[in-house]
């Protein structure tokens, strides 16, 4: 009996048995709609349509035959000349198209055949019982027991235990190769090739840049002194790539009046010439889309935008930190040189980067 007054239903009056954690589904919630009524196809009603469908299926198979022959012709007929990419492209393209249409013709023909000409009466077929009969189950247990007895798996402790050991050790090599994820890179993510006195060089020529070469509005793509030389020898080429991926710098000259420099960075620029890391602090793409009128630097990957005049602070996009600035000055000959390495790690955040 339900307590109508305060809307509560006593458990014994409930329609369902409640149990901890298991919902009970009402078996008769939805009536089985049964098989939908049979629709007679055009091919069953008219001989004309049936013949047309038969011709279409045969036509698809003939198309497949033609395509396969075409593929063979393409292989032999389209000559491949070394270093002529066009001839290689044509050969591979038409061979592939021939094979593809050869398979597609068979597939579409078979489906079309089944759909239009084969019997389409709806039938329902009940699934067989998942649980085996008692005899089958008893027989299976008997087989297992027999196997145990004949192999001596329970009896022969040495064999059994050594097998357990083998099985336990077998996955270990798979874990060991994760060692390739390491070792930790140490300090290499925190420092670049830049060092006090290193000249700023043009990328890729590796020629030094005089401050007087840099007009207002000009952009120079810069690498550290000595990097271009690394690229000239095969032995150090990989090292060059690794260093360049950290040390690439964008050098821009703007009107010094628009530079908003923090007091401690006053001597990091030289008469409006500023140098910033080209590696985006978001995921490390090269940020080099410089707009000279707005002095915005745009990263092409995810549209992070940095204001070059305001210490490359992020003004839009997913980057969370300003681009690191490379402190620069000029040497006695007027060439631009680095005052030091970057004062913070360049590029995206990593696990033990501070802040």
């Amino acid at each position: 009996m339900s307590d109508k007054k305060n809307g509560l239903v006593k458990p014994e009056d409930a329609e369902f048995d409640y149990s901890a954690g298991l919902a009970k589904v009402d078996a008769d919630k939805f009536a089985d709609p049964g098989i939908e009524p049979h629709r007679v196809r055009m091919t069953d009603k008219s001989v004309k349509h049936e013949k047309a469908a038969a011709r279409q299926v045969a036509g698809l198979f003939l198309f497949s035959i033609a395509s396969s022959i075409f593929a063979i012709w393409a292989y032999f007929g389209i000559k491949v000349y070394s270093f002529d990419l066009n001839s290689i492209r044509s050969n591979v393209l038409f061979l592939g198209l021939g094979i593809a249409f050869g398979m597609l013709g068979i597939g579409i023909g078979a489906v079309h055949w089944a759909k239009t000409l084969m019997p389409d009466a709806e039938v329902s077929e009940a699934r067989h019982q998942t649980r085996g009969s008692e005899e089958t189950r008893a027989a299976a247990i008997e087989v297992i027991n027999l196997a145990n007895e004949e192999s001596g798996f329970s009896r022969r402790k040495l064999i059994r235990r050594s097998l357990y050991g083998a099985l336990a050790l077998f996955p270990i090599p798979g874990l060991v190769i994760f060692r390739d994820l390491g070792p930790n890179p140490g300090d290499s993510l925190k420092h670049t090739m830049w060092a006090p006195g290193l000249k700023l060089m043009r990328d890729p020529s590796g020629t030094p840049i005089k401050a007087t070469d840099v007009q207002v509005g000009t952009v120079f793509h810069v690498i550290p002194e000595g990097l271009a030389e690394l690229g000239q020898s095969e032995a150090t080429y990989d090292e060059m790539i690794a260093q360049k991926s950290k040390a690439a710098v964008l050098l821009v000259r703007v009107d010094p009046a628009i530079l908003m420099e923090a007091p401690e960075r006053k001597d990091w620029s030289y008469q409006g010439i500023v140098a910033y890391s080209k590696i985006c602090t978001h995921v490390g793409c090269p940020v080099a889309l410089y707009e000279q009128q707005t002095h915005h630097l745009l990263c092409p990957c995810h549209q992070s935008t940095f204001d070059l005049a305001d210490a490359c602070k992020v003004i839009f996009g997913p980057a969370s930190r300003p681009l690191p600035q490379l402190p620069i000055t000029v040497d006695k000959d007027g060439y631009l040189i680095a005052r030091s390495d970057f004062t913070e790690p360049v590029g995206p955040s990593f696990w033990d980067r501070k802040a």
Partner: protein
Amino acid sequence: MKQNLKNARRSPWSAIAVILAGLILTGSGFAAATASTSAASESPYTAGQVEQGHKLFLSNCASCHGKNAEGTANGPSLYGVGAASVLFQVETGRMPGAISGPQLEVKPVQFKQPEIDAMAAWVASLAPGPAAPTAAYLAQKGDASRGGQIFRINCAMCHNAVGAGGALTGGKYAPALTNTSAAHIYEAMITGPQNMPVFSNSDLTLADKTDIITYLQAVQTNPSIGGFDLGNLGPVVEGLFMWIFMLGGLVLITMWLGAKSN
């Protein structure tokens, strides 16, 4: 006579004479060379062109750039922008600008070539600036592969690796370079129009510029080995094509497979 010559050669004066002769030769040669280069950098325009250009400027440009090209709130000063800047902006139809927007658009050229040259002459007469390129830099006889390397480092982030163009911030964009003439590519590099940075000759040397121009012309005629290039716009366009046409096609095939025959 022969004996005299021999004696003269041994004389201590002969060394001085030879040095003097050498000095005079190199000196006058250098003078001739510098004279010819300074003649080349001297205005190639006539006084008549300068005068015509001034009139054209006053009637067409002064409202934004100021009566003396000193610049106003609506347009920059034209002192020192040089003939190259005028030729680039006017010959591509960017100038005179139609409306103020994020970026000046390319549109049909508004002036006849002699008028453009006259305006370039007048602007060039105001202050020294980049001149029009000479034919040698535009002949596309450079090293296309080196040009490609320089282009990828300096230009490709905005203009795309094969010059198909790309988007910038706030509605601005780097235009496609597929139909840009060699002279306009050169002039854009040397003057840095609108938001493009300047690539002066101390940044990209004349040889670099020639190589870049050669590369850009070479990629235009380079056949697309991979077939349909979808405008060379890169992975976004290619991905979109796959999503719409390939996945769409697969969906249609699946629907056909499941549909009953009519």
